[in-house]
């Protein structure tokens, strides 16, 4: 009985999850006019934290400075909060909440966390350079059939496949 309630439900049909994601994307265009976005909210959080550490420096900086004194007062910050809540709702419902580090059996936790940090820095930086991430560029921009967004998506997968071999051990 105990073990039965703790068993996570298997993942559902990926195509139906894709349809739900596509309809959400469409709704974001029809209601907001912008599509979905995630890295924008994270960057706003970065601007907020940097302003706590060095207020006048951040406000006068060329990139974060444009966002003014209240960088968190931005629709993508709220969207990101929604993503967390939606993810929490679904993972609790399906008993998939599991505290810990996800990694291969033989890989060390330190290796996995340092790779997560390195990847995070690269992704956070690159999303600013490309004005979006998997959500803002690859999904939303491609829905609008923008050339640049499809170029971004192609390069994203190219970069991923090129580097995949070198970091495979974390999953062993």
């Amino acid at each position, binding site marked *: 009985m105990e073990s039965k309630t703790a068993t996570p439900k298997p993942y*559902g049909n990926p195509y139906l*999850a894709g*349809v*739900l*994601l*596509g*309809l959400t*994307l*469409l709704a974001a*265009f029809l209601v*907001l*006019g*912008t599509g979905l976005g*995630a890295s924008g909210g*994270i*960057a706003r959080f970065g*601007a907020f934290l*940097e302003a706590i550490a060095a207020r006048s420096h*951040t406000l006068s900086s060329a990139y974060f400075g444009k966002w003014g004194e209240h960088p968190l007062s931005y*629709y993508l910050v*709220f*969207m990101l909060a*929604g993503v*967390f*809540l*939606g993810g*929490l709702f679904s*993972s609790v419902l399906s008993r*998939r909440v599991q505290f810990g580090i*996800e990694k291969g059996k033989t890989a060390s936790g330190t290796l996995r966390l340092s*790779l997560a940090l*390195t*990847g*995070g*820095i690269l*992704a*956070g*930086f*690159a*999303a600013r*350079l*490309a*004005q979006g991430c*998997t*959500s803002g*560029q690859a999904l939303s921009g*491609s829905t609008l*059939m*923008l*050339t*640049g*967004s499809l*170029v*971004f998506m192609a*390069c994203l997968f*190219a*970069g991923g*496949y090129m*580097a*995949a071999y070198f970091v495979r051990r974390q999953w062993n």
Partner: protein
Amino acid sequence: MTTFYGLKALDSGEAFFASLVIGFFFGLALERAGFGSSRKISGIFYFTDMAVLKVMFTALVVAMPGLVIFSRIGLLDITTQIHTIKTYYGAYAIGGLIFGVGFVISGWCPGTAMVGLASGKLDALVFLIGAVLGSILFNELFPVIEPLYTWGQSTQASLNEPGLAFIYKSLGMSQNSFLLLFTAMAILCFWGAEYIERAKNPVQGGAYFNSPFLKSFCLLLIVVAAALFLLSPQNLETRVYPIILEPEATENTPSNMQESRESVSASQARAPMGPEELANRLLERDPKLTVVDIRPGPEYKAFHIRGALNVAVPDLPAFMGKNGESLIVIYSNDETYQAQIRDDLLKMGVTNGTILTDGLTGFQERCLKPVSLRSEPVSTESANRIRSWRDYFLSPGS
């Protein structure tokens, strides 16, 4: 349909609320797909689990035609209601490569990491800390890398905006053909993904390979993409064209405006622009040209010259001051009203404006009237020009 972006109200409480709700379903869909697990996400790079491919491409082949349908049936005006971004080949290619490397190293991207965090994953939290640091790093390096940020702007200009590039134009095909091609490619990817998963893991992998579900799903997708050919812009054109516009009432102009009109010296006023010249310059995407429609919002929504912005008369001086470097062509339904507006602007010292000869009525008569409805004989050359104008100005949302 009016969006928060179209209302310039993305920073309102209502938009924040809508974003929170949309984000909820975004997170829900990602978690359902299994993207609260970095191992599952990374599977695409090792050909063990192709869920990322399946989910992303399904979302695209649902949302792409969906948006096109809303635009073609006239419910959504892409030019005014949708935020688009320019194409910078260099910046996006480098950004994409670095992002892809970061993606495979960590197993996360910003959206999925939020779902991973909600699923209790410590590595997701560490990724998010890294992404915040990466954003701060970008801000600190921005003065140095600023040229890279806008490197390689596309030479294409769409919707009157230089650098805004659409893939079907870049590939030299129609929007319909691209959508059909993209859908066909997505279906091939689905079958390929199922095949690869089955080959890697014959027991559990490729559960949908050759399944009745995947067959009917793919059939549905291709039928939707092919059906878009029925919604071609030409169908809408015939509905939009015959709208008969009421001439602007002349009594709404106070008499003191009449006086002021005389006092403006003729040398100050720019010559009105002929409809043909305007049509050609818009077709050539002249970046120094801005077209402003001063009619009331509903009339503008019903029909306007493609690329024209709707600016209310009281806002005109400020708008023209902001766009000082471009020539602004103002039009209304007929000549008289728009000439008065131009002269009033001249009196205020705003000199970068001109008007459209005979207004919108003249533009429709001279540029958009089909050859078959014209009483005068039309040379083959003019007929071709009229056809290209009609193609450009009467295609919605392209």
